Every structure is written in C-alpha cells, then in structure tokens.
C-alpha cells in the first residue's frame, strides 16, 4: 500500500490525541493485519470515498480510552459506556478530518461518512473493501491503541 495514504492518518492520530486529550502518543511499527478481530475493546470505524475507497478504524484498550476520555472531559471515567463510545466516534471523526486535510494538500481528496462504534472484547472490525489492512500500534503512558487503514487494491 502507498505510504502516502498511511502517514497522514498516523500524523492525525498523534495530533488529535495530544491536542484534545493531552496524551503523549508514540507510534509503533506498522504491520499487515490478517484477521478481523479487534486488538482493543472499543473501536471507531469510518468509511472514506474519493481517489480511493476504504475505511479507517481506531481501536482502544479499555485502560487507554478511559484515560483519554477522562482527560478530554476533565473528570474520571471508570467504565466503557455510551459516553466512551460517543467519544471514540468523535475521535475517529477528528482523525479522519485531520488526515483528509493533509491528503488534500497532496492532491488526494476524500469524503468521510459518519463513524460507527463497536464495543466488547474480541469484536470484529469489518472494513468495507478487501484491500490490505495496515495496522499501526500506538502506545500512551496509560495503555495502547491501534489504528487500521484499509483501501481497495
């Protein structure tokens, strides 16, 4: 897969988490994901159309997203509930928006759908196309999360 489609999502993820949740994020090594099982406990998924069609997902470990949303709200969140799911949807939306802006500067214009959110251990992440799923793991001081970027071949 063309890395010029991947890097904007990595940059956007770091920027969104640092700006909205004051969380320092470090990206790990991208890998090709073979199955549909989510690495995390709550996942935001968003479809993209434009110069290529695809989806992105952002899946958080419970510990990680509780810390992220606690920082966003300025109050301690203790369980995965509808407020956490809503926040994951908005974080996915912001990552998409920021990445699409960078992609537009490179001449690649995309439109985004409204994100959906899935919660629960070992849930599936269904990408809309059968292209390769590139997973990028991220670490925070309080748990990990992973983004997946999947565009049609």
């Amino acid at each position: 897969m063309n890395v010029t489609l991947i890097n904007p999502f990595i940059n956007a993820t770091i920027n969104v988490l640092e700006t909205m949740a004051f969380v320092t994020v470090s990206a790990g090594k991208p890998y090709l994901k073979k199955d549909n099982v989510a690495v995390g406990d709550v996942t935001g998924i968003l479809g993209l159309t434009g110069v290529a069609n695809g989806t992105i997902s952002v899946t958080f470990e419970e510990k990680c997203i509780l810390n992220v949303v606690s920082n966003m709200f300025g109050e301690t969140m203790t369980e995965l509930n509808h407020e956490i799911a809503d926040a994951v949807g908005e974080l996915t939306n912001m990552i998409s928006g920021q990445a699409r802006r960078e992609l537009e500067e490179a001449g690649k214009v995309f439109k985004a759908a409204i994100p959906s959110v899935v919660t629960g251990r070992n849930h599936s992440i269904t990408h809309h196309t059968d292209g390769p799923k590139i997973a990028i793991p991220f670490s925070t001081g309080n748990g990990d999360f992973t983004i997946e970027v999947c565009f049609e071949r």
Partner: protein
Amino acid sequence: MDTSIKVLIVDDFATMRRILKNILKQIGFKNLVEADDGTSAWEILQGQTIDLIISDWNMPKMTGLELLKKVRASDQYKRTPFLMVTAEAQKQNVIEAVQAGVSNYVVKPFTAEAISDKLEKILK
C-alpha cells in the same frame, strides 16, 4: 466579551458538546443551550432568542452548513455570530462556509485557547 449572552451549541456528538460547554464555562458563559443536529437547532432558534451559535458541520438530518444558510436567510438571525467548529477543513468546505456567511471557523482538533480567541474576535 459579553459572557451573559445565550449560546447554542450544535453537534451530533455529545462528547464535543460537553468539551465545548466546559470551555465556554471556563471562559465565563453560563447561558448554554444544546442541540444534536441542525433540525433540532433550528427548532430551538424558533422558540427562543439565541445570541451566538457554535455548530459542527457534518451532522445527520441537517448539516451545519444548511443550518448556517437558514440562519442567514432569517430576519432574526441574519447577523447573529455563527462559529463553525468542525473536522471538515478541506478548502472547499471553508470557501462554502465563508460564502454562506460564517463568522469564523475552528478546525478540530482544537485547544481551549483557539475557541476563546475566535470568540473574542466575533463577539467584540
């Protein structure tokens, strides 16, 4: 900046409404009303007087841009400050919002300072 005015916050994500409310309260605003899409916002605007509208763009039922156009077409709200706070930051979006009469534009993600600075500009 007059913080006694009534502010309508429009976003389909409760998370974003909560973050914006927290920021506005820190600035000193107390009179805050919420809507989760443009249609609900328009109903509120018909039922009470709002002094400042802060709206997302990408929402179901009625988008922020559609709401902005309705607001600017109404006698009551054609000059009401309208701040768009959105992840839709592509050039065409900004052009469309400006042409529709947006007062200012904040791109998500944002800092509390960015919101405060934009409000200072459009409310002075």
